[in-house]
């Protein structure tokens, strides 16, 4: 490897990402850990801010195997909040501030949350809250501490949960996925040592929402490597400003969903390259990479992975030989991938099959849902140690001659919209639950007016359309609310007696 010093970034015997971050705080206390448009925090200052909040959390009973929700917008407080929860040996649960209160309540209950970190008291939960430090600016800047001020690590065990995160559930309720420390440590170490996704002199722009697990990867990987996390202003980061923001914060790495990069990469990539970005992470859906390789100074790395297998299990680095339909790559350390047919027999080389994932990357399962966990995490017949599990991704893939996997689609009705994973079944449940609705089917339509959107085809009392709209906005996160509702006298039925999705896919909207 070109950077011979980099293996030293991972201390022998490191058990969790906290061990790696502690090593950076010891080795480079004055290096910049976090940069915002208004201030920077060194590694030592970040450690002190984390330690102060962790102390407050500990006094409230937060410790190993407890879960603390982080209900904060993307920003310095959210990042320090996640680190402080980890520092207590507990697991953090990112919650989207903008999500409906009812949904957030369900998630808190399913996850068994002990405490919620908030900016200011909220009215949607009766659970215990902890308001993050209201005036961190005055106290974060204090310097002059030494290594003896370092917090004594809570030393969580590798199998204990590091974070829990929600994902859409086809039965009408979000699923809460629990990820242990060993999974996120494995990913971070692979990103630094094996995949060369980050170097100590990099600055990564935090563009993703708090509730996307790629946020965990991007922020922790940077802090474990000694690099800088750049946080754009608190106001929503308009994607149109991304190149200007990257330039302003001197970002060398930017993460954009494939849903954005695919259609707009041709225009965005040159702008980002000009702004000084050297590496563009993407993933989340099938990537159309036509025209990316023309900008040699900027490399696109396409990652793939379900939430249930700790963010990412493959990476593919685009070159000038990359086909337009970009492969998702191959497995890295700690990950085993199988392409299997319905009998769980390996699919012949080049033939499509369902992708199964095994290894240290696997989630513990869906919290509070043992049945759903058992359905998706099945015995791994190929495991080196009998008794291990593998996760059925529901993704169809095939392997090309180079050994890289090509994504071929889903085996179910899960879709991706603007990079978010959505089970159409969850949307349909919510629509059917609305007053006046008799039946409903939801579809993702790329040809919808205004751009790709979830469309609900609904049978019932169309006079209640406004009520249905309000109810859905109360129940679902914004990206899951159907943008158009088409009222029908009845749903079309095909020859098999099922709802004719082909007919609905061709039906006029609006």
């Amino acid at each position: 490897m070109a950077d011979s010093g980099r293996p030293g970034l991972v201390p022998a015997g490191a058990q969790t990402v906290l061990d790696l971050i502690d090593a950076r705080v010891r080795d480079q206390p004055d290096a910049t850990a976090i940069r915002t448009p208004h201030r920077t925090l060194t590694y030592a200052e970040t450690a002190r801010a984390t330690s102060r909040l962790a102390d407050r959390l500990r006094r409230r009973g937060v410790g190993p195997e407890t879960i603390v929700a982080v209900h904060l917008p993307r920003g310095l407080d959210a990042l320090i909040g996640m680190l402080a929860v980890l520092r207590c040996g507990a697991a953090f649960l990112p919650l989207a501030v903008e999500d409906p209160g009812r949904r957030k309540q369900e998630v808190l209950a399913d996850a068994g949350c002990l405490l919620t970190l908030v900016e200011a008291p909220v009215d949607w939960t009766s659970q215990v809250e902890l308001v993050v430090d209201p005036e961190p600016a005055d106290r974060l800047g204090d310097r002059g501490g030494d290594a003896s001020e370092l917090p004594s690590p809570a030393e969580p065990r590798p199998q204990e949960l590091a974070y829990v995160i929600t994902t859409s559930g086809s039965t009408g309720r979000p699923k809460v996925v629990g990820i242990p420390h060993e999974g996120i440590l494995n990913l971070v170490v692979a990103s630094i040592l094996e995949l060369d996704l980050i170097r100590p002199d990099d600055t990564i722009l935090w563009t993703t929402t708090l509730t996307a697990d790629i946020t965990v990867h991007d922020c922790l990987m940077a802090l474990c490597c000694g690099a800088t996390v750049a946080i754009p202003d608190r106001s929503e980061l308009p994607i149109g400003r991304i190149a200007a923001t990257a330039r302003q914060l001197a970002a060398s790495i930017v993460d954009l969903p494939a849903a954005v990069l695919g259609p707009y990469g041709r225009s965005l990539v040159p702008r980002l390259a000009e702004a000084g970005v050297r590496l563009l992470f993407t993933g989340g859906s099938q990537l159309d990479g036509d025209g990316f390789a023309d900008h040699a100074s900027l490399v696109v790395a396409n990652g793939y992975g379900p939430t249930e297998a700790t963010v990412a299990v493959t990476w593919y680095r685009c070159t000038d030989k990359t086909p337009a339909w970009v492969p998702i790559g191959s497995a890295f350390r700690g990950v085993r991938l199988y392409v299997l047919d319905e009998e769980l027999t390996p699919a012949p080389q080049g033939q499509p099959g369902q992708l199964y994932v095994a290894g240290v990357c696997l989630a513990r399962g869906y919290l509070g849902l043992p049945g759903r966990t058992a359905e998706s995490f099945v015995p791994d017949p190929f495991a080196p140690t009998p008794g291990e599990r593998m996760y059925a991704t529901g993704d169809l893939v095939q392997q090309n001659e180079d050994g890289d996997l090509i994504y071929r689609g889903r085996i179910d009705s899960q879709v991706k919209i603007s990079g978010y994973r959505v089970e159409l079944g969850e949307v349909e449940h919510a629509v059917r639950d609305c007053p006046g609705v008799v039946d409903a089917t939801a579809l993702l339509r790329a040809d919808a007016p205004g751009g790709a959107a979830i469309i609900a085809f609904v049978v019932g009392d169309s006079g209640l359309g406004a009520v249905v709209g309000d109810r859905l906005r109360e129940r679902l996160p914004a990206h899951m609310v159907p943008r158009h509702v088409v009222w029908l006298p009845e749903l079309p039925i095909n020859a098999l007696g099922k709802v004719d999705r082909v007919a609905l896919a061709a039906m006029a909207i609006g």
Partner: protein
Amino acid sequence: MAIAQQTTVAAVRTLVVQHLNLALPEGRPTEQDDLWKLGMTSLSCLGLMLAIEDEFDIELAQDALKEATFQNLATISAAVDAVLV
């Protein structure tokens, strides 16, 4: 370039119809039709913004990159003209 001979509004209308999958009668959307109400998303708005910058070979002002600028054909055209003039 053909676009140079059209008025800014007409050129913007062509791009809007193309990027927002709009099937509307000739002359629509009007200058005042609210594009967000016609279904524009932040993602399709990004595509529209990039297409406008590429087509007119301009860089929209930093403070123009906000929701209100992309409200309708009139507001978009004003932002384009502000750079072109």
